[in-house]
């Protein structure tokens, strides 16, 4: 069967679900952050395949802007994680439940 649009749909769906699983499974804040990047990339892949499908360059510009926002987000997010490590000497997210007490 030649590759068509449904293959790209299923592939990016699978990558997105793996990202969700990683976010729910792990306790390391950096790994959770990396799984969020994985989900962003799966959505990018789907947008590019639809741009190819409909011969529309606007979708690829959207992917470009998603990459821009992801780069800014990573800079701020990693700064927050470094600050948290400096305060509590750990990147375990289970320590961050002080609002409960």
């Amino acid at each position: 069967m030649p590759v068509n649009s449904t293959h790209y749909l299923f592939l990016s769906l699978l990558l997105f679900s793996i990202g969700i699983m990683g976010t729910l499974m792990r306790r390391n804040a950096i790994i959770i952050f990396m799984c969020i990047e994985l989900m962003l990339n799966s959505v990018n892949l789907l947008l590019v395949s639809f741009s190819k499908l409909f011969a529309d360059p606007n979708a690829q510009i959207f992917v470009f802007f998603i990459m821009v926002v992801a780069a800014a987000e990573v800079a701020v997010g990693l700064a927050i994680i470094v600050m948290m490590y400096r305060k509590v000497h750990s990147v375990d997210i289970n320590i961050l439940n002080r609002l409960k007490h």
Partner: protein
Amino acid sequence: MNLYDTLFWFLSAVSVGCALGVILSRNPVNSVLFLVLTFISISGHYILMNAQFLFIVNLIVYTGAIMVLFLFVIMLMNLNADVEPQKGQLVQLAGVVSGGVLFLVLLAAVKTASPVPIDKASIDIGLITNLGKVLFKDFVLPFEISSVLFLSAMIGAVVIGKKEESAPLPSGE
């Protein structure tokens, strides 16, 4: 099975396998290296769809800049498999089940989508001459706003990551 299909299946297997490696490996450094491989295979998908501009941007921005930043932070914190916090078996199983259920629900929702062959005739969509014209004709304002976003993100990262003084300076200094 032609070359396009063979490359598609190969790149898909690499990306899914390395994505599983990201969430399953104990050592955070291995996770980062697996994620780099995943991003490289996704870049391979882009070049397969002839999105050359996004291919090179993905390679430079994601694997070149973002993942190296992750690697630096992990090596700065000296994390390894021994100090890696682990969730209980039950919580991990619940995570896998809920992720799998989400996958099944979305799969059932898009299962009936009619398969359309990826158009191989429109080859010049992703070239930089075409995308540059669209970017600077229709998307000039978002492009300029994104530069402001980058500036604010940079200032925010510096302010957050700055080492706090143990005692606040007197207001005169």
